[in-house]
């Protein structure tokens, strides 16, 4: 496990709230008063049922939406400043690949946007592809890949800009259980190698326990942070961990922390 300076705060959320105005004119409280600090290099899960505001929170951090109250600081900067400095890598529920680009060209896309010269672009993209274990599929088109492979390309693309923070919005929820378990192990390997801060949105309890340093449990109506649970399981974690009593105990601890579902 890479050395993490426990006092190195990467993301600071202070009393963050989000109120939407619904189509009938009523205000809907999507998120109330979320406060927490996320350390540099930490793997955090935002866990909760639909409507708990977990994706809203991720989108606030990603600068896709502005909170209606409270403050968010990313390494001392606003989310907008952090986005403009390309400190975020985004991974979505679907891989969001560009059909008309080959796998390697998909990964090169963000590098094209920041104006990296062609040679270097290809070299960096190839390195990322190697990291996710898909080097031999460089010249394939996305539709020729399986869902799991597409999502790996999505991860490689998110890492291409070498962001400090990886924001993942239910990235494995559309995959089958076998592929998902394999990708869990792979994601942890990638995380160990790259030392990113990862915020991982999910509604799968065992997934969040297996991956995270800390699980943030969000509860709905109104969306709020109801518990933060430390997952002090040893690393590196392998599939066998899921059969241990400690793992099961943590899963039920997380499950029992939900309120009003």
């Amino acid at each position, binding site marked *: 496990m890479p050395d993490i300076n426990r006092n190195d705060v990467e993301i600071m959320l202070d009393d963050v709230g989000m109120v939407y105005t619904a189509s009938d004119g009523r205000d809907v409280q999507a998120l109330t008063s979320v406060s927490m600090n996320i350390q540099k290099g930490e793997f955090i899960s935002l866990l909760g049922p639909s409507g708990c505001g977990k994706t809203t929170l991720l989108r606030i951090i*990603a600068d*896709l939406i502005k909170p209606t109250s409270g403050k968010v600081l990313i390494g001392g900067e606003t989310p907008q400043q952090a*986005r*403009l400095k*390309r400190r*975020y*890598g*985004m991974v*979505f*529920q*679907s891989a*969001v690949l*560009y*059909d*008309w*680009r*080959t796998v390697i060209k998909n990964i090169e*896309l*963000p590098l*094209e*946007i*920041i104006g990296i010269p062609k040679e270097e672009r290809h070299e960096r993209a190839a390195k990322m592809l190697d990291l996710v274990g898909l080097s031999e599929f460089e010249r*394939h*088109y996305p*539709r*020729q*890949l*399986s869902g*799991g*492979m597409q999502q790996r390309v999505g991860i490689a693309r998110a890492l291409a*800009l070498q962001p400090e923070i990886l924001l993942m919005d239910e990235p494995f929820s559309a995959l089958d259980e076998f*592929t998902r378990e394999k990708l869990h192990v792979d994601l942890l390997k990638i995380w160990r190698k790259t030392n990113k801060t990862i915020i991982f949105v999910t509604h799968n309890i065992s997934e969040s326990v297996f991956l995270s340093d800390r699980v943030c449990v969000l509860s709905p109506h109104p969306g709020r942070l109801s518990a933060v649970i430390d997952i002090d399981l040893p690393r590196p974690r392998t599939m066998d961990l899921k059969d241990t009593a400690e793992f099961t105990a943590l899963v039920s601890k997380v499950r029992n922390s939900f309120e009003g579902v």
Partner: protein
Amino acid sequence: MRKLKCILTSKPFVTLCWIILLIVIWEIFASVVAQTKRTPENVMPHLSGIIESVFSDKKINGSQTVLEMVLENAAATLSRAGIGYLIGIVLGFVLALLMSLSGVIEKIAFPYLMLIQLIPILGMAPIINAITGDIAVSRIVIAAILTFYPVATNTIAGFKAIEPAKHELMYSYAANKFQIYTKTMIPFCIPYFFTGLKISAPMAITASILVDTLQGGIGLGCLLSQSLKGAMTRYVFWDIVFFSALIGILSFYLMGVIENLLCRYKRAGGSGKKE
């Protein structure tokens, strides 16, 4: 038995059946019409006669055979349709681009776009002719107007069909407007754009022929109406009908071929799944 079923439902077999059926129906009608003998020449000749007329070297207006005459006039009509088509494509695409760039332009332009489409071409033609003062130019303009609408609407539909996550991705890269268009929006809408091109290619040709009939000069439509009025052999009429149908279909397929050449990923297929 299964093999037989396979052959019976295969595409070439079905197509062949249709062609044979159409020929049979045609010949029945041609025979019926031939018995009425109201005109010196059969209004609906047998197919053999039509094919014969294409290859006949009889000069029908003193200097040209039927085929030479049709081809000469077709060149004029098709080049007008082609120029109009290209102009329509450019205008349609540019308008779609402007409409996607600005909601105000979209709100202003869209109702009029619909309106233009609702006016019949034959009603529009005299007005355009009065404005341009030249029938050849107005034929081009009308082909352009007809092309323009399907191209614009399909391209706009393409821009709107982009999944929001692609926009969010570009946003997270802090991409500028130009990059958003060149890297995401325009490549994404190419198949939609080509749908517009495929719809409007035969339309531009049809419109050109139709507008030809309004006034004289050189053009397939002019020839068509002369032949229909009995000014020359009826076979010219049928040759033009079949020739323009063929060109219309070919223009549609040509667009498909160009699209496939441009979009290599479409040919890559989806069967190579592994893992």
